[in-house]
């Protein structure tokens, strides 16, 4: 059976990431705590690339003190293998090669295959430690807990942001509401059939506008019920975000330039991608103080999808650029910003293995560029078979 110490160490590594503590994995563990030097790297291999393996891979890939030797799965379409390839982490369908790898210090078995225990015991090097069975399940729970907290943070920031749109939402509802009330009042005394029809059309159109506003806001505000991804049409999502972000200004003088190329899709949670776009567009609109040009550009090339959101606003001073993704950093006044918007944007983009870059010139404007890999996500059933 696996050694309890191995399980502790793996949990320990994950805890280090969650708390951002630099730890030394081979230091003596005393009361569950240890100090790990920053120069030590643990060489890890993951057996199984289904849901559990993918979650582990995503948790470990950005850790500075973890070197992923490789990941294996019998199913060549397993999601974790696709993601590993994107990160240039070796993949294999044969577990034994990876188990025997001389550099592996820690094997994490999430195959859920009862036969794997004996295979590992038979082929692993004596010094290699193993986490599997219940240890792997606890690790999985730990990762899921982290994801859940992160999702709650996204939702809290989204709802706080919606509060800043209240004035814009009220405006867009009050206009058609005025038309409805005034026309309906007039209808009570009107006898001319032609005018009655005209007023009825106006009332109907105004009510439709209110319905559209209500629908847009409800869709944006709702929390994601599942962690599952879907194919998202980027252009549709950008347009939906624009419908929300325009509530951020009292004025109506922002011209929108769309440079959409073809039909572009990525696999992600729709609510999260919408939140990224709304945050970036809202920042752009605030930076322009209601007047300027918002440019939305998309492009698809060499397996990558690029999205740019540019404004002609005030720009970001160079001294602030290194801080803009820090949690709770904001330059907005009057409660317009929570300081979590760009932090969440970056977290979501990284979740989908994307990159975020920024160009800004004070007095001229800012452009955020997002790059997402087009990972061909197989359906969940296929990689659940692990």
């Amino acid at each position: 059976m696996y050694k309890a110490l191995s399980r502790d160490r793996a949990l320990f590594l994950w805890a280090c990431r969650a708390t951002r503590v630099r730890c030394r994995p081979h230091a003596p563990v005393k009361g569950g705590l240890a100090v790990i030097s920053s120069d030590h790297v643990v060489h890890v291999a993951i057996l199984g690339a289904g849901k559990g393996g993918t979650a582990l891979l995503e948790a470990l890939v950005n850790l500075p003190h973890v070197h992923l030797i490789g990941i294996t799965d019998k199913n060549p379409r397993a999601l974790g293998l696709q993601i590993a390839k994107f990160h240039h982490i070796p993949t294999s369908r044969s577990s034994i090669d990876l188990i025997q790898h001389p550099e592996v210090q820690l094997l994490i078995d999430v195959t859920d295959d009862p036969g794997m225990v004996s295979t590992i015991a038979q082929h692993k090097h004596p010094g290699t430690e193993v986490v599997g069975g219940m240890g792997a399940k606890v690790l999985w729970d730990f990762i899921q807990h982290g994801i859940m907290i992160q999702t709650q943070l996204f939702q809290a920031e989204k709802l706080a942001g919606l509060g800043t749109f209240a004035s814009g939402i009220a405006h867009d509802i009050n206009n058609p509401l005025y038309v409805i009330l005034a026309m309906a009042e007039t209808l009570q005394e009107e006898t001319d059939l032609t005018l009655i029809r005209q007023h009825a059309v106006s009332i109907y159109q105004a009510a439709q506008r209110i319905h559209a506003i209500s629908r847009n806001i409800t869709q944006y505000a709702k929390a994601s019920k599942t962690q599952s991804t879907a194919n998202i049409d980027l252009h549709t999502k950008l347009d939906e975000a624009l419908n929300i972000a325009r509530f951020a200004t009292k004025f109506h003088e922002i011209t929108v330039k769309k440079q959409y190329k073809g039909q572009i899709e990525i696999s992600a949670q729709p609510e999260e991608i919408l939140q990224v776009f709304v945050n970036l567009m809202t920042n752009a609109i605030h930076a322009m103080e209601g007047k300027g040009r918002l440019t939305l550009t998309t492009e698809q090339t060499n397996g990558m999808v690029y999205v740019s959101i540019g404004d002609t606003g005030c720009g970001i001073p160079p001294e602030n650029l290194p801080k803009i993704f820090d949690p709770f950093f904001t330059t907005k006044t009057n409660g317009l910003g929570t300081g979590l918007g760009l932090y969440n944007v970056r977290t979501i983009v990284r979740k989908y293995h994307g990159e975020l870059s920024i160009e800004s010139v004070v007095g001229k404007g800012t452009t955020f560029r997002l790059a997402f890999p087009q990972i061909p996500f197989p359906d969940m059933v296929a990689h659940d078979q692990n």
Partner: protein
Amino acid sequence: MSEATGGMFSGHKTNGRVLVMDDEADVRKVVRMTLEKAGYDVLEAEDGEKAIQEINKDENPLLLDVIICDIRMPKINGVEAINYFKQNYSHVPLIVLTGFPDTEMATGFLKQGIVDYLVKPVEKDRLTQAVAKAMEQRELNRL
């Protein structure tokens, strides 16, 4: 001009001449219906730029009594349009009619000498009372 009212200067008896600036045609229509019923002539403009063009036409500067102005409009927004009218047509009283229930904005405008800050949806009586009050100020400005 987008939709200037015909008959505005036709010589019929009127309680006054009101320019309504709003980018939404149905809102202009509703305001017009209310004010015409109250005996006013109504002139319409869909944005600040067209309003300024219209107000500078022919004898309009002399004949205009009240301006009702929205805030969110394309090209020249309500704030800019109001500043322009305050500087160049200070004798014409202004009413803001907007969808923004914004106390800070309302206070700012009232300090500038706006007659009233009305938030849509506004009741008919409230609108006609505000225009009547603006007409009183217009009469005082003539003295």
